[in-house]
């Protein structure tokens, strides 16, 4: 059984006067050497105390600050929101918090880091604490913690993670999406289309006689063709379309909110541009054509793979019919 007496809250003991004064000085020095801001307000939100950290990080003078409303001293503060927040601390007698992740900063204090960050101001975590003294006076203590470092490194980390994620989604050669990411995206678009009953179409396309092209111009020539064709097609697409490399010489495009008419029109445009744009490799002009298959999502498909199959069949048909053309999967009739 723990000795309860020794663990109870220390009640105010009567310290000899000398020690009390020494304690006060110690407390005061600690407050002024903290690497955090300390700001104390009364119930009218006027400043009654601030520490050295704030004095040196702002261009304000103590004599002017003490007694001023916090909103006059720091006009950048969002007054209505902060007043409500400070009220909650007083009325409920509970702490409140403000994290840099929701608001980068409250007080405009310049940061002192040698690193360059996205903001000229210090990133802050603020804590609002209710304080009651034995005279019955109530105050709010605002602690301002400088978290610029944490903020900066977090941003860097997120940026790097995003880059890594992006790299793992991209096809190295053509710089468009790789098959895995394209397929993952199709899975999502399929689910969205089903959930909201929206249109969705696919174009599967394949370079004609690519093996012959490789034989004639070598793999480097083949690679150049893949890169150029990718660029040509990308330029024709909207932001919401997803273009990926499906296989060695096969590509695929997801067209959300598009019906087969729209997809076919785009497919024809792609077909025409590639056929009519000569690609240059080693001072030689290479003529390339593509075959395309188009399919629109119907009520038939029970998964996204089925849609790919339909588009693929249409692509196969385009090849059979002589290449350099567009075929679309037959509409499903009930």
């Amino acid at each position: 059984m723990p000795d309860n007496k020794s663990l109870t809250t220390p009640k105010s003991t009567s310290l000899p006067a000398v020690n009390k004064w020494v304690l006060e000085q110690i407390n005061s020095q600690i407050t002024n050497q903290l690497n955090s801001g300390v700001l104390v307000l009364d119930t009218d939100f006027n400043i009654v105390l601030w520490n050295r950290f704030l004095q040196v990080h702002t261009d304000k003078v103590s004599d002017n600050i003490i007694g001023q409303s916090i909103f006059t001293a720091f006009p950048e503060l969002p007054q209505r929101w902060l007043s409500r927040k400070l009220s909650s601390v007083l009325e409920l007698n509970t702490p409140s918090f403000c994290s840099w992740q929701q608001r980068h900063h409250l007080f405009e204090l310049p940061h002192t880091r040698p690193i360059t960050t996205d903001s000229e101001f210090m990133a802050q975590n603020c804590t609002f604490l209710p304080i009651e003294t034995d005279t019955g006076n109530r105050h709010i203590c605002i602690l301002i913690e400088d978290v610029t470092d944490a903020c900066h490194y977090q941003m860097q980390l997120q940026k790097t993670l995003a880059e890594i994620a992006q790299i793992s989604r991209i096809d190295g050669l053509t710089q468009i999406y790789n098959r895995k990411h394209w397929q993952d995206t199709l899975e999502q678009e399929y689910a969205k289309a089903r959930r909201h009953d929206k249109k969705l179409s696919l174009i599967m396309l394949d370079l004609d006689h690519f093996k012959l092209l490789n034989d004639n111009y070598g793999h480097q020539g083949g690679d150049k063709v893949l890169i150029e064709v990718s660029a040509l097609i990308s330029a024709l697409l909207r932001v919401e379309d997803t273009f990926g490399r499906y296989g060695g010489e096969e590509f695929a495009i997801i067209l959300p909110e598009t019906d087969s008419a729209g997809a076919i029109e785009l497919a024809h445009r792609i077909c025409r541009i590639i056929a009519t744009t000569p690609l240059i490799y080693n001072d030689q002009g290479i003529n390339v054509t593509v075959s395309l298959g188009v399919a629109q999502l119907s009520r038939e498909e029970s998964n996204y793979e089925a849609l790919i199959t339909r588009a693929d069949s249409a692509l196969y048909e385009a090849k059979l019919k002589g290449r350099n053309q567009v075929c679309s999967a037959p509409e499903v009739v009930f």
Partner: protein
Amino acid sequence: MNEFHLTEDQQDCLQELINIAMGQASDQLARYLDTFVYLKVPSIESVEAKELMITLSQQKNTLAVVSQGFFGYEGIRGESLLLYQEEDSGRIADLLGYEPDELSQDEQLIDISSILTTTFLNVFAQQIDNQLSYNAPKLLPNVQEILSEHLQQMPFTWNLALKVNINYQVTDYSFNCNMILLIPETAITNIKYVLDRVLEEF
């Protein structure tokens, strides 16, 4: 509740202390929010770590979880988790007395979580002659990996948690959230001493 090996008297005492804390916290809140809070008896159950993960992953509609650490004297400490469903989060700004564009939805969830956690725990602490301090609340996106990582990385080992199901119903619309108090073994032992002390007074 048997996993905590609380006697019937201790269970009863704990439930009663929690009821009183809920009553007072709700009253404070009602006055601050300028509304009436319909009070239901919070149910208390013990839940094991594994069980908790399963429960959390099964709640498909969970929008977010806010986590906040608390600590006081006599080794009373733990972490509170507040779970919100998508449908409950629409009018929190309204409820808190802010304009909806004054703060992001994340901030709304964090603010109300902190208020719910600290008002309740403050009164509870008062009942047992204690005083609590709090860490800043953290919003965890409802991603399974992040949740389980967070639960595994607690600064204390815990196998059992006290699940206090709080249902706040506010005058013109229903606002629901579940509060789970994660309390490590050592703290539960201390709570038992406290409960015995309270019971001794009778």
